[in-house]
């Protein structure tokens, strides 16, 4: 088929996440438009061999439906596939800007900040303004974080200028530092110091969930006010914001259905998923790793494409040990250009309980902040027992394969989460030779035992389905956890406000009752509570923002995953069709030779 082979596929746009692109619709339309409206009268175009069949009258039965089958789309799709990532970026960013973070698009590298800062900035920010472009190094940022507990001082925020986006007002620097990792910057900036900074900042930040000074939310609000004219370089992972839907449930359920089909189909079609599959998958994931490498100003600039600098693959499951103490050790290979790792590529061996241990540590640390921690694949006593016992049948091989794929997916998700990537535990997991055994994850631990028993019966019949379902459902639970955190924060805030109210009333009463000494005390209490209220409020908002981001990121990942799976499925279909062609071609001369 000349037509299909001649056509060279359009350049694969590196930026991955333009879900929001209007361009993409174009492409779709092209596809539709051509296929349906086209060809009513089959053109004798010689480059359209597929239509020829349909031209032969006597043989073929359905002449009209044929016209619909159309090979045109190739051409048109070519024409219309939007490639420039910058376009996407721009579109992307013209939309969502109503929400926090992201991208302020000023196209200059170093000094956009001041502009931004200047605009919506309210009065007390002059300090901040003065500073930002100047300070851009780690040290500064350190300083910044040494300041923390000053509740309101905007001036201290000056130091934080590094992130430039500090518009000193309320709230969190936490957000600030979460943003850059989240925002995918396509700028290929050298990782250097800022990465470390962010790492340390992160850890510090975590420790001090107090509202520092300002920036990020301010920055966020900033974003609100400076929308369209600052198209940011397309960061694919930039959140598409807008609607933060609380329809998580619907979404997850829907995804359940899907993941039942496509990965299963996928599995049917691909027996051994090569680890390199993760490679194409990896670029698809957000280039979060890139983010920490850029300073915040540069974050705004991205014109360049998404390149994922961290490839993880899990290969080579090996049985280690004997009998009931046996376990499968997987080789976890990482390739990265991030400087926060000690070398460019490294491999470690990990077993399943290590993964679980990682999950627990991360949950402990981060779920407080409203992060969505990706869930690990579930334990399966039945499967593992089979493996341990050494049965060499296909079902246990399949189990191992499935687990390997699931672990790989899990790790991919962890590293594609910009904040989690910064976690030293994650790094340790990837790098360290020997990990202390995560005892609490023993399969037969008392607490989990009963649960396991219950699950065992299900596992027998629903292994594959369970795996995927679990992912999604846990995801949902995770996100629900996030929401819970948020609710708690809100509750605290409300309570504090109530207290404040009461204190105020008390004060009023005192005033009225004219007891000056008690009055002072009341006043003190009031100011104390005021502070608390503010604090809680800020915390709440911080958490809300985080949760929102998380959910959106989660969304996007799902979208990406899904897309990937569908593409894989279609590709395997394609492959089998091509094989069919081969076989039939081989048969044809034989048929002709019949005598």
């Amino acid at each position: 088929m000349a037509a299909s082979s001649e056509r060279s596929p359009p350049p694969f746009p590196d930026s991955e996440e333009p879900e929001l692109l209007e361009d993409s619709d174009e492409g779709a339309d092209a596809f539709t438009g051509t296929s349906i409206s086209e060809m009513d009268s089959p053109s004798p175009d010689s480059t359209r061999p597929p239509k020829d069949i349909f031209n032969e009258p006597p043989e073929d039965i359905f002449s009209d439906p044929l016209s619909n089958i159309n090979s045109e789309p190739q051409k048109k799709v070519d024409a219309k596939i939007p490639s420039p990532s910058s376009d996407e970026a721009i579109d992307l960013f013209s939309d969502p800007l109503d929400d926090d973070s992201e991208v302020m698009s000023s196209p200059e590298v170093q000094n956009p900040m001041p502009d931004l800062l200047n605009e919506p900035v309210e009065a007390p920010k002059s300090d901040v303004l003065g500073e930002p472009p100047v300070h851009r190094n780690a040290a500064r940022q350190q300083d910044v974080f040494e300041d923390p507990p000053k509740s309101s001082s905007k001036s201290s925020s000056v130091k934080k200028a590094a992130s430039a986006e500090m518009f000193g007002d309320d709230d969190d620097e936490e957000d600030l530092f979460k943003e850059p990792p989240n925002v995918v910057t396509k700028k290929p900036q050298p990782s250097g110091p800022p990465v470390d900074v962010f790492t340390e900042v992160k850890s510090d930040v975590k420790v001090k969930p107090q509202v520092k000074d300002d920036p990020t939310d301010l920055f966020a609000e900033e974003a609100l006010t400076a929308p369209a004219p600052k198209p940011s370089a397309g960061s694919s992972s930039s959140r598409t914001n807008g609607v933060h839907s609380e329809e998580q449930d619907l979404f997850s359920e829907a995804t359940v259905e899907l993941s039942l089909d496509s990965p299963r189909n996928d599995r049917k079609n691909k027996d051994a998923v090569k680890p390199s599959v993760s490679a194409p998958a990896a670029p698809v994931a957000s280039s979060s790793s890139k983010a920490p490498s850029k300073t915040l100003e540069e974050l705004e600039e991205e014109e360049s494409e998404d390149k994922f600098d961290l490839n993880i693959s899990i290969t080579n499951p090996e049985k280690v040990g004997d009998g009931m103490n046996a376990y499968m050790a997987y080789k976890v290979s990482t390739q990265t250009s991030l400087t926060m790792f000690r070398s460019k590529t490294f491999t470690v061996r990990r077993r399943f309980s290590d993964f679980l241990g990682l999950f627990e540590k991360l949950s402990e640390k981060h779920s407080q902040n409203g992060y969505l921690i990706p869930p690990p694949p579930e334990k399966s006593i039945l499967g593992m027992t089979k493996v341990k016992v050494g049965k060499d049948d296909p079902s246990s091989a399949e189990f191992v394969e499935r687990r390997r794929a699931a672990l790989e997916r899990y790790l991919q998700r962890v590293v594609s989460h910009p904040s989690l990537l910064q976690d030293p535990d994650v790094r340790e997991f990837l790098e360290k030779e020997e990990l202390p055994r995560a005892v609490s994850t023993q399969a037969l631990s008392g607490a989990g035992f009963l649960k396991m028993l219950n699950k065992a019966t299900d596992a027998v019949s629903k292994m594959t389905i369970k795996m995927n379902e679990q992912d999604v459902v846990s995801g949902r639970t995770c996100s629900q956890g996030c929401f819970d955190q948020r609710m708690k924060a809100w509750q605290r805030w409300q309570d504090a406000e109530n207290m404040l109210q009461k204190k105020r009333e008390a004060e009023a009463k005192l005033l009225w009752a004219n007891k000056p000494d008690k009055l002072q005390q009341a006043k003190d209490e009031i100011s104390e509570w005021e502070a608390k209220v503010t604090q809680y409020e800020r915390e709440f908002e911080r958490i809300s923002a985080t949760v929102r981001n998380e959910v959106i990121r989660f969304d996007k990942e799902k979208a990406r995953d899904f897309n990937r799976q569908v593409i894989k499925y279609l590709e395997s279909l394609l492959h089998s069709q091509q094989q069919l062609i081969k076989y039939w071609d081989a048969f044809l001369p034989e048929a002709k030779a019949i005598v």
Partner: protein
Amino acid sequence: MTGPYSCCSCIVFVHSVSVDLNNDASLVIDIPDALCERDKVKFTVHTKTTLSSFQKPEYSVQRQHEDFIWLHDTIVETEEYAGLIIPPAPPKPDFEGPREKMHKLGEGESSMTKEEYAKMKQELEAEYLAVFKKTVQVHEVFLQRLSSHPMFRKDRNFQIFLEYDQDLTVRRKNAKEMFGGFFKNMVKSADEVLISGVKEVDEFFEQEKNFLLDYSSKIKDATAKAEKMTRSHKNVADDYNHISGALNNIAADNNTAFKKHLEKCAEVFEKLRVSISKVEDRMASDQELKLTELLRYYTRDIQAAKDLLYRRARALADYENSNKALDKARLKGKDVAQAEENQKQCLQKFDKLSESGKKELTSFKARRVVAFRKNLIEMTELEIKHAKNSVSLLQGSIEVLKSN
């Protein structure tokens, strides 16, 4: 959808599972049109002839399936044709499948969405049409084989069949005759077993017999497998429907950024479905026509050839019996003349059958080989075209999805 479903197909095929049977212009038959009402299919048999034995140069008559069966049976029963392979009777038109579907459609109408209903209706119609075409084709081929055979075309009944412009109103076999026919078949099978013991004198026939027996079992097997294959292809087309429907539903439910993505996917899949399922469907019908039908037809044809062999073997057995009778008569010294006469006749019959049988079987083989070759080639080419089509469709879809 209730009530009579009338359809009119105006498609002419020179579709041949045997070699083109209409090359002799002196008698050209085709079925240009057919009507189906409820259970009955009315074929329009159109004849063009230059033969003098016909009163008019052109005829167009309406015939029903039973008329074809009648014609076939009379020919079978004609002694003269014992040495010929009698073209197998066309199978009864089987609209069971589409009818069931129609029923389901009618019942489920309220529970389905509009699109689903429309889709199902479309499928139903396509299926109906396919069955229809098939049955027209087999009837046509039957007639064409008769017309192209030097002996059959002269058959009086055949001529009546083509000419008589009124309803033939053939007497349907009544119960007794049906039972009689059934009984005859049983006897025949028993007989076959008996005479399989008869020593075959002619090498040629010995070979043919073995070959045909083997071939017939193999072709039955192949037919079953081909039918399975076409069914699977139809299922694939169906599955695509389901997938895209499901995707659509999911997309409709969603309100996140994912939604756009999903919609895109659903769209792509829908397009894919529409085209690929058409491709699959058409592949299925092509396969069916080219391969499955071919196989089915030759299954019947093989049976006809086997019948010929049977008749010949029967004649041989008769001959041998008559020989024995003659010997006995000679021994006893009475009725010798009669026995001799008998024997002579048997011998004659046998020889005639052998001779014509040989001719028939040889030409049958040639015909068969040519037909298979032609159809297999055509089918292969179609398969390749379909597969290439699918490939390009899939590639297009992948591109669109990737460009997202």
